[in-house]
């Protein structure tokens, strides 16, 4: 008989495994981040370097870049575990699949979302974003990027069994990202006018709360369908 572990141990084990694997292959962390940087760099070159124009467009550009670079890592979220069979082991294990899914999504966020949150003040500076909007940018990314990972997990779970699921994945997930994008950029816009942006941030937080309790079940049923 196997020894029983607590749910927390399971969470920690899955999370540590994913994060450690990512740190062993540094490219997995740096490539999406580099992509984020390059996409942001392209905009001033394409639309012209006028500071007023850039600072007006900065929230949108930073958020679109964040959406796209979250997409990059999603394809791999369950792929390797699916190919080497450990996903089946997680499904067959006596522990709830939704819990290990949450751990995997949390690892994905630590690798792809968190570095973007940490780097965002730098980009706000590069894009000439006004000082008072800095806090809103960091906060919306902090609340929004976990939500992006959760929603993206549903798409990743649905397409994990497909040979070429990458493009389909973005087709499925990007429409679902739109509400997050709308509220996040609206919060930053409001903060640029020195108004209170707590309302939009609260809606983002509510969406995160709903996502946190419902997305893991959607992801795990998607995985069960894909693996069966």
């Amino acid at each position, binding site marked *: 008989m196997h020894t029983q572990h607590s749910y927390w141990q399971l969470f920690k084990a899955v999370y540590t495994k994913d994060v450690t694997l990512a740190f062993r292959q540094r490219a997995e962390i740096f490539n999406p981040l580099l992509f984020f940087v390059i996409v942001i760099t392209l905009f001033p070159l394409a639309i012209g370097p006028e500071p007023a124009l850039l600072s007006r467009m900065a929230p949108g550009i930073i958020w679109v870049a964040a959406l796209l670079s979250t997409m990059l890592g999603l394809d791999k979220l369950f792929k390797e575990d699916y190919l080497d069979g450990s996903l089946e082991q997680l499904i067959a294990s006596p522990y709830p699949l939704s819990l290990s899914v949450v751990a995997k999504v949390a690892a994905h966020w630590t690798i792809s979302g968190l570095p973007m949150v940490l780097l965002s003040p730098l980009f706000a500076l590069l894009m000439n974003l006004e000082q008072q909007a800095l806090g809103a940018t960091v906060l919306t990314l902090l609340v929004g990027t976990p939500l992006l990972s959760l929603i993206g997990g*549903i798409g990743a779970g649905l397409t994990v*069994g*497909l040979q070429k699921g990458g493009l389909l994945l973005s087709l499925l997930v*990007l429409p*679902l990202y*739109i509400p997050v994008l709308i509220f996040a950029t609206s919060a930053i816009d409001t903060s640029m006018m020195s108004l209170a942006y707590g309302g939009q941030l609260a809606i983002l937080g509510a969406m995160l709360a709903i996502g946190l309790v419902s997305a893991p079940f*959607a992801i795990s049923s*998607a995985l069960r*369908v894909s693996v069966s």
Partner: protein
Amino acid sequence: MWKWLHPYAKAERAYQLCNTLLPYFAVISIVCILVGWVWGLAFAPADYQQKDSYRIIFIHVPSAILSMGAYSSMAIAAIVALVWQIRNAELAVISIAPVGAAMTAIALITGAAWGKPMWGAWWVWDARLTSELILLFLYFGVISLYHAFEDKKVAGRAACILAIVGVINLPIIHFSVEWWNTLHQGSTITKFDTSAIDPTMLWPLLINILGFAGFVGVIALMRLKNELLRCEQHRPWVRELISRG
């Protein structure tokens, strides 16, 4: 209720049910759309402000309502398919999706044609227009996810999960005109007692909505029949049906 419903989990019975229902839906859709269009386009009075160009309402509003109605029925079918593991409900999801996508496209195109003379622009990034566009993308997502899988059993269930996740967009579309200050007007026909729309225009509109609902039903049932036949093509009842001609 279960005793009554359960036989329809069998494809043959579901096929027969489709055949029974089809004429009713067909009659409703043909009669209502003909009456509604002739009444609405030719006899209903012109609007005092928008003149005759408001008449596109008789196509725009029914298709917009049905785009959301089709999505809700698709989502209900998806829940039935996943919870009670009924394969026919998965086929229903796949049958409804393209019809709903077409309705969404019609709503968007007629809306653009209406917006040009009234707002002076084909398209504005207004909350309701944007959320209706997301609905179109969700339909495309369900359809393309289904077609991406070789194994249609997996494909059906994956499409069901996506359909359920997308339900989150429905309340956003419905309340978009109330939550945000938008160019698109609020709903006029749900408030019967306050009568935001004149009865001479309301009746042809309601008849058109019923007609469009019947039309969606007809196409969805015809598609469902095809899907049932395709998925059961090796069964004796299908062979018998074909040999009978």
